[in-house]
């Protein structure tokens, strides 16, 4: 009897390694920074949305500079993965979260990754790279850090709308409406040689206290953050 029960438990565990029913939620842990539409993907080991220490491709650049996840959706599809796109239905506000969403993974999609641009930043994003999805049922919490795509200089200057185009300097929007204007730029827009041109941990926002001038258009009392910037909760059923 006991032996039979154990055999069943082993079979269940093996089954979970092949495919899994997940429930996912994300909370924005910042005070004044918004997340653009998230992409959350289950995919095979060895594939990635991004990799720290590796130069961002065009798909990561488009996400980090302008919040466009269509390129990353293509990356996931190409790897045989499954993408959960825009689960928050738009921006995820500071301290906000979205209703738990289900994701049923298919065999082989054993890793989970996540990305979304942080607004207002030049090319900052919240990220998770290839987290191994647990096979034991339970609820798992992962705290996520802010990355810098390394593709655009952190000028901290607003460039409404236009700044979201890959390769165009500037921050496309501050949904919270707290950014200023008239800054001189924290660093020159070009060349982007004040940072490594690979994905790295974001150094954070400098900002200043002058909404109509100074070096930065951002506010040092509002737009800064410390890691972690998000909480991911994954329930393995």
């Amino acid at each position: 009897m006991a032996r039979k029960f154990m055999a069943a438990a082993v079979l269940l565990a093996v089954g979970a390694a092949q495919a899994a029913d997940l429930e996912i939620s994300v909370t924005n842990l910042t005070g004044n920074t918004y997340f653009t539409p998230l992409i959350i993907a289950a995919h095979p080991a060895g594939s990635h949305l991004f990799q720290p220490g590796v130069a961002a491709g065009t798909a990561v650049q488009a996400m980090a500079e302008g919040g466009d996840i269509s390129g990353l959706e293509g990356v996931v599809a190409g790897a045989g993965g499954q993408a959960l796109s825009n689960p928050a239905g738009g921006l995820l506000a500071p301290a906000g979260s979205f209703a738990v969403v289900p994701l049923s993974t298919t065999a082989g999609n054993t890793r989970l990754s996540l990305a979304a641009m942080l607004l207002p930043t030049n090319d900052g994003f919240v990220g998770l790279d290839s987290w191994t999805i647990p096979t034991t049922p339970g609820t798992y919490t992962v705290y996520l850090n802010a990355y810098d795509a390394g593709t655009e200089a952190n000028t901290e200057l607003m460039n409404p709308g236009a700044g979201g185009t890959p390769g165009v300097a500037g921050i496309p929007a501050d949904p919270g409406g707290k950014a200023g204007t008239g800054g001189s730029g924290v660093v020159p827009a070009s060349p982007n040689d004040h940072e490594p041109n690979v994905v790295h941990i974001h150094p954070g926002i400098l900002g200043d206290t002058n909404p109509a001038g100074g070096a930065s258009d951002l506010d040092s009392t509002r737009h800064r953050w410390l890691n972690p910037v998000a909480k991911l909760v994954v329930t393995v059923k």
Partner: protein
Amino acid sequence: MKTRTRNGALALLAAATLAGCGGGGKSQLEYRVTVTNLTAGQPMSPLLVAATTGGAVWQEGQPASVALEKLAEGGDMSDLAREIAANGGVGGAAGAAPIGPGASETHTFSFRRARGVTLTVASMLVNTNDGFAGITALPISDLAVGESMSRAVVAWDAGTEANSEAAGTIPGPADGGEGFNAARSDAPDAVRIHAGVVSHDDGLASSVLGVQQRFDNPVMRLVVERLR
């Protein structure tokens, strides 16, 4: 390192929560909790340590309770300790004095075996408006005797008071200003990760804080050992 040992724990919690605790029997669980203040210039208010069964004491993205607001704005944990007890807290311990930068403190406490017991630790970063170090609902009942675990504890912003850093608004030694104030002056009114302090040395002229009060995560190291 300061060491305090209290069997049966914090008086505030003990009376209400240790019903059925005969004391000393083989069914007693005993834990040793050690915290270290990892900041450069943020003394931490007397530590709340509690074993709880009532779930999380705070929730990221949600408004802080008034009891948590009192801890985060003024370093006063007494209401929070009472609330934990009323919600089924099963034992705990509490610090008697602030924990200075770089200092450690150990508490040993025991209680009768209970399923699903979790640990909550909280302490104000006293040179902030409403920042606190803490971890809540950390599962500890799976620890075997002799086992230990450690956690890097981050700083939270209670979201109850704007981070003005202005003179008269910070109760710690950098200012000596106001502690708890029932008005909620921050937006969003929600517990979140603290963004750190800016300080007058970093361009916020109206700040009473200096470079020595700046901090980064983690701000505290927590070690939990099960003794029996």
